[in-house]
Every structure is written in C-alpha cells, then in structure tokens.
C-alpha cells in the first residue's frame, strides 16, 4: 500500500475537523485560526492531486494575505458572540432537518454511485517534468482569456466599490507631503532682514 491514501485520509480528517470547529468554537479568533488550518490542509490535498500551483496559491493568497487581514479585523473588533447566538437553539431543529436532508441528497447524488472510480477513472500520473503552473497558464491565457479578463474587471469593480463605500474626504485633515518637505529651500522659510543698528539714548552703561 502506498503512502498517498494514508496521507489523504489524514489530511481529510484534519480538514473536516477543522472546518467543523470553525463553526462550533465560541471564540472568533479560534474560529479564524481553524479556518486557516482548513485552508492549509486543503492545500495539502491539492498537492496530492498534483495541482501544486493551486495549492501554493491557496496558501499564498488565502492563508498569507486574506486570513491575516481577517484575523486583524477579528482581533480589533472584539466581537461578542453570545447575542449573535441567541436564536441558535430555537432554530436548531429546522436547521438540522434541512442540513440532514441536503446531506442525504448529496450523498445519493455525489456518492460513489455516480462519481465512483468506474464512472470517473483516476487521471494518469504525470512525470517529474510536468508543470501544473505552465499548463494552467497556457490554458488561462488562451482558451479562457475572456472569462479571465472578466474576472479582472470584477476585481476592479470591487476596488471601486470598496473605495466608494469607505473613503471620506476630510478637507480639514492635514497631510504630510515628503516630496514637498524635501524640496523646501532656505529662502522659502527664512527671510533675512537688514536692520539699522539702534541708536539713541539707551546707551550701554
């Protein structure tokens, strides 16, 4: 037996546990940390699938950047979850019922009956010179160039939207302009005044 299935089950177990804990734990910072763990293990599972580019980018973008900011906000906000959970017990039966139904449906549909190895044979393994990054790049910039560009536009809209919703111009706020500061010459600030020496009665004693 090769080591891969063992690794897969280990990572899957960690992933599922972490994902469940994200929802269950009371402390929002702990929840965020479990979410990071979940991302990390899913990246590991992707590595097992030879999708190294996706795996590393998941770590880079989600773990390395998105979750850092997420933690940042969670730590700053000091969210009190108790009032948020007030209706929890009341809605629990309905929620559980819906969840169980959806789970059963999905188990029937997505289970081995439809997606087993007979219907979907495992793809062939690639050699060491196979580069997932190159393959993705080649297809992304050719066949999927149009969706790729739209995705870029969506990100642009996200930037515009975020700035529209958060930026408030404060005319009275004082800004520092280092370039201006550096360009200051003595003549701009200091004026040399020639004055006649005072003459008069107040003579030194």
């Amino acid at each position, binding site marked *: 037996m090769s080591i891969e299935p063992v690794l897969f089950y280990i990572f899957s177990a960690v992933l599922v546990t972490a994902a469940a804990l994200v929802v269950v734990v009371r402390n929002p910072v702990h929840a965020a940390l479990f979410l990071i763990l979940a991302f990390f293990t899913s990246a590991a599972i992707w590595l097992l699938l030879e999708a190294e580019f996706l795996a590393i980018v998941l770590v880079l973008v989600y773990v390395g950047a998105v979750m850092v900011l997420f933690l940042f906000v969670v730590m700053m906000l000091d969210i009190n979850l108790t009032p948020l959970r007030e209706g929890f017990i009341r809605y629990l039966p309905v929620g559980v019922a819906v969840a169980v139904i959806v789970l059963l*449906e*999905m188990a*029937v*549909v*997505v289970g081995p*009956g*439809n*997606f087993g190895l007979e219907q979907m044979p495992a793809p062939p393994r690639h050699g060491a010179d196979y580069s997932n990054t190159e393959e993705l790049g*080649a297809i992304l910039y*050719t*066949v*999927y*160039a*149009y*969706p790729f560009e*739209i*995705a870029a*536009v*969506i990100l*642009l*809209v*996200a930037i*515009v*939207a975020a700035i*529209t*919703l958060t930026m408030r111009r404060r005319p009275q706020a004082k800004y520092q302009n280092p370039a201006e500061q550096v360009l200051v010459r003595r003549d701009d600030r200091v004026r040399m005044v020639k004055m006649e020496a005072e003459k008069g009665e107040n003579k030194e004693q």
Partner: protein
Amino acid sequence: MNFEIPDFAPAAPEIFVLAMACAVLIVDLFLTEKNRVITYLLSQTTLLGAAVLTVSLHSAAPQVTFSGTFISDSLADVLKVFIYLITAVVFLYSREYLIARKLFKGEFFVLGLFAVLGMMVLVSGYNMLTLYLGLELLSLSMYAMVAMHRDSMPSSEAAMKYFILGAIASGMLLYGMSLIYGATGSLDIAEIAAYIQNSSSDDMVLLLGLVFIIVALAFKLGAVPFHMWIPDVYHGAPTAITLFISTAPKIAAFAMVMRLLTDGLGGLLTQWQDILVILAALSIAVGNVVAIAQGNIKRMLAYSTISHVGFLFLGVLAGTDEGYSAAMFYVLVYALMSLGAFGMVILLSRAGFEADNIADFKGLNERSPWFAFMMLILMFSMAGVPPTVGFYAKLAVLSAVVDVGLVWLAVFGVLFAVVGAFYYLRIVKFMYFEKPEDKAPLASDFDMRAVISANALVVLALGIFPGSLIALCATVI
C-alpha cells in the same frame, strides 16, 4: 499548443464599454463638483456608442468566439440594445435625484457602466463560466450602488441583505454548475445540450444541478419563495438605484434563464417545467396579494415585480418558441413600465422628501393633470388593462400557457391579475379622487419631463400598435 487568436469583432461593444468605463473612472478623478455633469454626459455617450456598435455589427447568423465562451446572436443584440436604452433613461431620471441628495458622484455612473458590462456579458454568455462571471459583475456593481448612500441606515441594511442573499444565490448557482459539469464534463452550453440529447434524462446528478440552478435563478429574479430580499432592497435603496435594479437587470436575468434553461438544459424541459409552474403560481399569488397591504409605493412596486416575475415564468415554462418570445415581450414591457413608475416616484420627490408613500400621490391630478395621466397609463399597463401594452404582454404569456395545455394555470394567472388590478387602481383613485396634502409644484428639468412623458406614451402606443415589438421578439427567439 496550437491556438488561434479569437475574433474580437463580435465583442466590440463589450470592449468599448469596458474601455469607456475605465476612461470615465479616470476622467472623473480630475473633475470638480461643478463639472461632474461631464461624467454624466460621457456615460450617456458610452451607451450611445455601444448601441451604435451593437447595431452596426449585428449579423443574423450567431457568431461564437473566444473558444465558445461568447455568443453574439439576434437575441443578445436586441436585449443589449434595450439594456443600453433603459440604462440611458435610468441615468437621465437619476441625475436630478442624485444631485439633490449629494449622491451625484462619478462612482454612480462608473458602477452603472460596469453593471451594464456585466449584463452584456450575461446576455452574450455561452459558457457556464461567463454566465456566472457576468452575473457576479452585475451583482457586485449593484450591491455597491445600493450601499452608496452611506449615511442612510435603510440603504446600508438593504445592501447587506442584498449582498448576503445574493452571495448565497451565487453559491447555489456555482454548486449547480459544478454538478452539471460533473455530469456532462463540460461548461459549454452547446456541449451540455448535446450531452443531454444523447443521454437518458433521469440522471440524478444532472437533476440536482438543475434544481440548484433554478433556485439561484429564482433568487436573482425574485420568485417566491426566494423573494424575501426584493421588498427590503427596493424600499431601502435610494429611488434612483431602485429604478436601475428593477429594470435593466431583469432583461439580463431573462437572457440568463434562456441560455441556461432552454439553450443548455432544454433537454430537461419536462423536469424544469414542473418546478417553474410552482414558482410562477406562488409568485403571482403572493406578489399580488401582499402588494395590497403596502403603504409604501416602492414596496408595493417590489411586490408587483414579484408577480410580474411569475408571469414571466409562465412564458418560459411553456417551453415553446411562442412562450419564449412572449416571455421576452413581457420582460421588455415590464422594464419599460417599471422605468416609468419609478421615474414618477423620482419626479414627485425632491430633496428631503422621498414621495415614496402611496399617499403622496393624493390629488396629483390637481397638481399636474398631465403627469397624473402619465401615471394612469403606467398603472393601467401594469394592471394589464387594454389598450395599454401590459395587456398584450399578459395575453401573450397566458395564451402560450394555454397552448401547452396548462389552462388551470392561465385561469389562476388571470384571477390574480384581477386581484392585482386593485392596488394599481388604488393609486389612480388617490390621484383623481383625493385632495392633495402637498401642494408644492413639480419641479424638474425639461429633459426629465419630456422623457418620462415619452416613456408613458410609448407604453400607450405599444398597446395600440404592439405588432412590431411582438414580431421582433418572435424573430429573435
């Protein structure tokens, strides 16, 4: 690998709108408050230019490019032209409203243009991926526009509700698409259709994917029981933005329904027909009944939208070409009527006064007989009273349903249309038989008055001569 550079020409309108939206974004940065009208004019120019490009590049044969992810056919071109037209009118109606409320910022027009781009992508999407991305582009711009009035609690609340429910719907859509990809092995609409043609139709994976996609579509269109967000968002958003949400995006959503359900999953007609029957019946019933209880005209129009979506589904679920063209006719007419109705709300409002209560329409006849008459036409049309175009729209979808043997559904629709007539006519009663509480004269620029009059008169004229639009809808389907 061998790869041919795709033909960019069919997507020229999209490229133009994108370039202009970016240009407007940058130009706006250098404008002062006084010159902001330049942004407005540039946006209108963009829409005009896109319309010219779309019409001049139109060809009868469908053109597929970008490796099958983009299609430019008659349906897409006609819907796009209507989207430009309606958005242009929306911008025109909104201008004064936004200036009066200090919301006249370049971002409104930039986001509006990006929303138009999203609608264009959606209308021309021929791949699940592009359909999804177009929808996201549209929705993201919309969320931001709803939230733009930052200091208003209702509009922030509306934006949150819209965003969260919209995100859930997108999740559903993606899940459905991934299941369909799992079943068919392709994201391409044409390939999915071909796969379904050649396989048995009781594939569980395909059906679950279909259900998820219909749920997402119902969410986005606002069909009962996925309608909860519509009244809150319509009510909370600034009227100018409600005006936008309730008009052009519905046309794009119709195109999405056509691409996904008929072009892609047309082979599963018998399965989705049953689901749509339930959605349509519930929407017509709930929308029309609940609208009666509303005191706020934006909420009332929101519920009326829900009932109109029900009628739209009637046309689609017929599953025949007559049904589709009737649905298309319906959605275009609906967009026109909704444009006029929300335009009237804007016309009556002024800084510090939203005119969004039904009581604000009291005695409009005394204040301005002409606009009372315009509102009368619009309300009659929404209710489906001849000789307005609303009547023909309802007639067309009902006859399409009768043709496929669902007579009970048609009768059901007619019954609730009669119920619905009550609340439209109540506004007419307020306008003509009540004393005005507010005697302030209607203050608006000439272009707003002219266009809103034209809008209402078109509704009337199309009611008298509906033939050309019906024929157009029939040819493009």
